[in-house]
């Protein structure tokens, strides 16, 4: 059902009679005119999104040095880029971190600095060949010195994105920002009503060769993004564009405290309104798009879903979780997404941007989104823990505990209540300190009460990280009634890793 062709629309751009609106304006128009009327009236709907898109980067061609070098490793402002391409091509990824500055500065910042016209220090090393004898190179370049600088992003512009909160008892630092303990806040991403891919959810006009707004330049969709998952409305796209044409405003390095770096990428997609179906799809509102709220407190692939929300609720600033009103924060900028949709609209009206239809549409069906195939089971706490754990009754003395530890020749002694529940832990070091200070009677006075524990079903990597975070060397393993069923030490884990 095509009422209009892309040629019709482009002819209207050329003669200045094209009718463009942004995706924010479209719901009202469709409500008033109906999809058929709207399709007649409106030629193009522009969309926009500006948020953290980790799967981003750029191909850079540095030009040949004299004598020439075949770069084996290369660093741009101390951030390593991938050099396993031809001699002087490199791919700088947004999330690669600086060797010297860590999380504060990464590939995303290098890209932002390039776009901003700043000088970038290059350091490269090589093994040397007859045709490329040079082994070390150090120089400084700006984007103008490069032959090509092409942004190439494997996965951008998620159709919609999950919402994050944290039900655990400690603050988490994630790619969704700081998540306060005890569901203290909620963060979300995506542009809702302006979402490029949600305005054409069957990708009738989006695919290989679709001309788009990419960071202030004209770029292209080059295919489905990695992890493209249309069945669940988590479609993504692969995009490319000329870094040299981009606007720093729409390509920004970001650093998430305790997590790493990411790129804020600005994407706008024009949706040519070829028929009533497409018009109807662009009438999508924030209230129509639902997403799951996930508990990031559980560090597993399948995180518990707490509830579903709409973008309308998220954007209201508060959502209800288990009867409590929790403040929400977007991670992507709706303000700038709007600016992008507006700027793209301007370009089209001024006749400097002509939309294209894709050579090949993004797949809408038949795409599988699989978890990783893992060979060999990930060991759990139960596989590694010591099952025969000696505990001590609450209320006994330091003297008693010292004896138990000495006889058993171990370092950690869980303290349990009369009902056999874990109430504290004592280490050999605690006892040594107590003795030195002459505090020999009540164990209760010297034990650690806030005991960090593990669950028998947890994968070892999660527990190893917990030991590291709390800077401790053992965790009692408890069941849901706080009864101690084992103990796991960093030694057990080290031995296991050595065997792997």
């Amino acid at each position, binding site marked *: 059902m095509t009422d209009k062709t892309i040629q019709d629309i482009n002819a209207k751009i050329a003669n200045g009679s094209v009718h463009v609106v942004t995706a924010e304006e479209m719901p009202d128009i469709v409500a008033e005119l109906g999809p058929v009327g709207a399709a007649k009236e409106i030629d193009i709907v522009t969309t926009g999104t500006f948020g953290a898109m980790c799967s981003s980067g750029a191909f850079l061609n540095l030009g040949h040095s004299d004598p020439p070098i075949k770069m084996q490793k290369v660093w741009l402002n101390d951030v390593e880029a991938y050099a396993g391409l031809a001699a002087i091509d490199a791919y700088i990824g947004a999330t690669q971190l600086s060797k010297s500055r860590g999380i*504060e500065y990464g590939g995303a910042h290098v890209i932002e600095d390039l776009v901003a016209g700043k000088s970038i220090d290059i350091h490269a090393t090589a093994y040397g060949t007859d045709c490329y004898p040079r082994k070390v190179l150090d120089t400084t370049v700006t984007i103008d010195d490069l032959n090509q600088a092409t942004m190439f992003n494997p996965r951008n512009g998620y159709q919609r994105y999950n919402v994050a909160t944290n039900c655990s008892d400690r603050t988490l630092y994630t790619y969704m*920002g700081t998540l306060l303990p005890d569901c203290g806040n909620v963060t979300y991403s995506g542009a809702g009503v302006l979402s490029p891919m949600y305005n054409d959810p069957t990708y009738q006009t989006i695919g290989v060769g679709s001309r788009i707004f990419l960071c202030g330049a004209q770029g292209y969709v080059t295919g489905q993004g990695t992890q493209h998952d249309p069945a669940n409305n988590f479609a993504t796209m692969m995009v490319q564009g000329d870094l040299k044409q981009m606007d720093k405003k729409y390509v920004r390095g970001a650093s998430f*405290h305790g997590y790493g770096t990411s790129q804020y990428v600005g994407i706008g997609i024009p949706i040519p309104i070829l028929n009533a179906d497409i018009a109807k799809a662009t009438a999508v509102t924030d209230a129509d798009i639902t997403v799951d709220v996930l508990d990031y407190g559980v560090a597993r692939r399948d995180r518990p879903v707490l509830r579903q929300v709409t973008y309308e609720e998220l954007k209201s600033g508060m959502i209800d979780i288990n009867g409590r009103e929790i*403040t*929400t924060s977007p991670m992507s900028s709706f303000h700038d997404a709007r600016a992008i949709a507006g700027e793209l609209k301007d370009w089209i009206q001024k006749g400097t941007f002509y939309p294209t239809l894709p050579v090949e549409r993004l797949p809408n069906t038949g795409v599988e989104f699989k978890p990783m195939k893992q060979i060999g089971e990930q060991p759990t706490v139960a596989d590694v823990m010591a099952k025969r754990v000696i505990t001590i009754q609450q209320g006994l003395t330091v003297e008693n505990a010292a004896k138990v530890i000495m006889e058993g020749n171990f370092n950690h002694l869980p303290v349990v209540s009369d009902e056999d529940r874990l109430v504290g832990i004592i280490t050999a070091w605690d006892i040594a300190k107590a003795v030195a200070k002459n505090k020999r009677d009540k164990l209760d006075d010297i034990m650690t009460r806030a005991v960090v524990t593990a669950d028998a079903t947890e994968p070892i990597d999660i527990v190893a990280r917990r030991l590291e975070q709390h800077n401790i060397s053992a965790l009692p393993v408890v069941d849901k009634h706080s009864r101690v069923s084992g103990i796991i030490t960093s030694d057990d884990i080290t031995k296991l890793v050595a065997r792997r």
Partner: protein
Amino acid sequence: MKITLHATPDITPRPLIAEVILETGALLNIDRADVKPKGGEVVIDVPPNECKRVVAAFEKRGATITALEQPVIKDDDECVNCGACISVCPTSVISFREDWSVQMDLDKCVQCGACVTMCPHGALTVMKS
């Protein structure tokens, strides 16, 4: 208005704030307290009309008081108006305007710095008084 009380170790053991409340009868609200071995820093919300008397009462006891004027500075060139900083602020300083740009009601700020760590673009700085 908010003031910062800087107390040196020699006066920290004293119930300074309680004494000042008793003396002035002013309803003080403690927004944030940071007491270290080398002294302390307490951010106190003072009813504007009592401010002079409260400051005088503290100073009489040897404490230094500074006014908290611009507690957090936002660099507008760095800020992308994402709003990530909104949900971590304990006192709802930050909010969206009608046009989805970010605004800060700095009178409410207690200088906890949570928004500074949250900001992915390094746009925020807490002014240490």
